[in-house]
């Protein structure tokens, strides 16, 4: 019953705020996980396996740089390389990467299947809801609106929610894993890097929040132009018979131009978090390198640190495009 009303609200909300659904996919919480499990139904056990697989592959990718760092630290210089240990590390790495690859394949394959099933299930529920909705619903909601909900929004929910969840899991594992390693290696350096990373994330989130506003105004114009297209195509008989071709093309041009101007803005602003992040990745690296020298300490751990930092920021920058896709 509760599920039913949420579906109804979902449909009913479309015209006043088409962005609601999109927003909900943007900030993913554990509640969404429950909801997703509900939508996927059959996938509950599969979901657990999927998350475990994500944890394993994510975890392995975190641990791997430590091993490669260790291996590199064993190469002290000419004639001072401990081949036995290096080979051992190399083989362990090989195994780790193979296992990680296998699990990440499992994750992406089943994630796709679950997303497809979820979309089909959601559509099925909406289809049966259609036949129970009062006819007046269809009078007060534009066909194009309901249509885009049935087609593209369902896709966005299924894809976005799942991708988002998996990304979140991988991110949490990567960041927390890396933090643990860094703390073990050098608590002091961690103290410098963590606030830096936090500032980066905060800044990026802030900019992302700002772009939402632009996107919702763009979204409104998109809806308007879609309705115009549909109306024009369906009303071709009248448009032709009353010689309204020119005026309707003119009206379309105007709306199209408005949409163009608004999308340039939205797209430009949303692309900004990426370049802004770049300096913030390098700066802590430089400062920490500087710090390391001035402390004249931790020479053993130096590379391992750098690679750990690299992992954190690498992950952050790769997750950012996915968060924008939604």
């Amino acid at each position: 019953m509760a599920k039913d009303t949420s579906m109804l609200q979902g449909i009913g909300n479309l015209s006043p705020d088409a962005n609601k659904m999109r927003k909900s996919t943007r900030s993913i919480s554990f509640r969404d996980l429950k909801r997703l499990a509900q939508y996927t139904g059959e996938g509950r056990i599969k979901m657990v396996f999927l998350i475990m697989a994500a944890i394993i592959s994510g975890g392995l990718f975190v641990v791997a740089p430590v091993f490669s760092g260790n291996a590199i630290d064993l190469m002290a210089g000419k004639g001072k390389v401990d081949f036995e240990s290096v080979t051992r590390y190399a083989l362990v790495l090989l195994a780790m990467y193979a296992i990680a690859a296998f699990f990440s394949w499992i994750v992406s394959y089943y994630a796709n299947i679950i997303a497809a099933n979820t979309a089909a299930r959601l559509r099925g529920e909406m289809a049966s809801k259609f036949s129970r909705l009062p006819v007046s619903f269809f009078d007060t909601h534009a066909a194009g609106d309901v249509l885009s909900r049935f087609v593209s929004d369902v896709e966005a929910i299924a894809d976005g929610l799942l991708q988002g969840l998996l990304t979140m899991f991988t991110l949490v594992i990567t960041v927390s894993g890396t933090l643990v390693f860094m703390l073990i290696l050098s608590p002091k350096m961690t103290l410098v890097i963590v606030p830096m990373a936090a500032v980066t994330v905060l800044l990026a989130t802030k900019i992302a929040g700002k772009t939402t506003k632009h996107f919702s105004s763009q979204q409104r114009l998109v809806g308007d132009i879609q309705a115009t297209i549909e109306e024009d195509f369906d009303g071709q008989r009248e448009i032709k018979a009353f010689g309204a071709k020119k005026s309707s093309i003119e009206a379309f041009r105007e709306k199209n131009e408005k949409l163009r101007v608004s999308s340039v803005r939205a797209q430009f602003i949303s692309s900004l978090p990426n370049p802004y992040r770049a300096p913030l990745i390098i700066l802590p690296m430089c400062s920490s390198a500087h710090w390391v020298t001035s402390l004249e300490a931790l020479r053993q751990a130096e590379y391992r640190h750098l690679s750990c930092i690299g992992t954190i920021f690498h992950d952050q920058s790769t997750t950012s495009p996915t968060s924008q896709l939604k």
Partner: protein
Amino acid sequence: MKDSRTKKFSQTLSTLRPFQKELVLGPLAKLLEAVLEVTLPMMMAHIVDVGITSHDHEDVLRTSLVMGVMILVSLCCAIFCQYCAAKASTGVGALLRERMFTRVNAMSTKEQEVIGTESLMVRMTTDVNQTSLAVSMLIRLVSRVPFITIGGVLAAMSIDIPMAGVLAVASVLFLITLLLIIRSTFMQYGIVEKRLDKITSEVRESILGVRVIRAFSRNKHHEDKMNDASSAYKESVIAVSKLSSLMSPVTVFIMNLSIVAVIFIGGIRVDTGAISKGDIIAFMNYIFTIVTALTILANLVVIFTRTFVSMERIEEVLRSKASERDDETESLKSTAMDKPVDDISMENQPNHPLVKFENVSFSYLDTDDDDTDLLAVDSLSFQIRKGEKLGIIGTTGSGKSTVLALMLKLYSPTSGEIYIDGENIAEWSEERVRAQMSPVFQSPRLFRGTVRENLLLGGISMDDKELKKRLQIAMAWDFVSKMEGGLDAKVEANGRNLSGGQRQRLCIARALCHDAALLLMDDASSALDMETDEKLQATLKEHLAETGKTCVMISARIKPIVDANWILVFDNGKLVGEGKHDELLQNCEEYAKIAASQEMGGV
């Protein structure tokens, strides 16, 4: 191969032309950014080797400063490039939408029906967005990826050739795997898109036809159809993911293998003293950079693969036949041709045939065989005399509405000729033919806007007094004057906020506002109650008498046409009787049958 593709997408690609500046400058800025990005790991290696190892604080500071400046420059480049990308990609999107919209409007009704509204809509939204995304990616990433990959390999070579070999082999393997997977998924994406179209059309049918579906309790049937389309789509998505889900794990694994190889070979090289530890660290950095670049490349290829499918669908619209003739060139031609028409109209007296059908046949299907069963109208010959009221009656599917569509040149006859004022309309532009008549279609459409905008559709002008007069004739003034805003009251898409009868009356008023000599009404008052309909017929009769307009009234009921000067009786696409009401009652079996069923025999 490349050339044929360029040709294949020439219409779509031509929208790039206005954005040449962005297409050149954007990637150039990005290239500069990439150059800086490749040099940064070298400086990191310098810090590790010189700064940290020898504890040279100043060197670390100096190098950090230089790096800081480089980062700032690359930031500016990146922002500029993003701006170029945003401008060009949205511009291309807007241009594509406009061209498609214009093109579709120039298509004949038959051509439009071949593509279909829902498919057209998907093409103008999803497919255009996909293409626009690809343009953005083209500017932002395409120059960068090869540069970083090649630059990375070159920089690696400057450190150590054997180890750079590892990187090069890994990159090539990576690319080959990528291309193999993409090639095999390309076709499957086409199927996915087609099935999504199918879902759209099923859902749309269910929404638009909701009243009919409910009335005939076809709910379950339509639900099943939607579910079928949905699960067919699901199957195709799963089929694609079988291959596409391999992409990222396999490619990442290849690059990770190269890390293992670097550690292994690097160990040997360090032991022989060929390279230092810092070199290996720089190497690792290059691997990360290249992996990132190639991963982006993988995403790019996926995006472009999908884009090619989308572009094909866009191209189909842009290249499709648009047989309605261009208005501008046509108006020149028609002014030259107007002369003789004026001469003819000089002798326009009552009873002169205004419209003449000669042996007209028409089929909605494009078949060559002469199967007369497929004909919507079959060898029709009749005349409409000036100033008269002509009634057309017949059962549903008897071809009544087709006659109207043929007169308006929405379709052209499969065979036979139609004349207006003695001239074959095949020679006329669509626009000129349509200027002669004002139609009210069966289930007519209203548009988003105001009452006034709907009445003046097509940008004609008329003052409020005249508008009010026409609304009164159409029995629409009563409710329009009560609406908030009166003539400027809001009309929702397809008149959702009005009742069926109100919509019909507004559409009749719209036809009257256009004031053409020929008024065409197709079941125009079917949704009106008896009393309003009677009043409407009376005011309409008065109006016709006053203006001397000719009127064609198509109806399934006898009442509206009982007073017509001439009545045509249609059955199964054929003319089965014509004459006045009283005559037809006597000598036309079909007419008598209809009259009897409507208890009009005694009138």
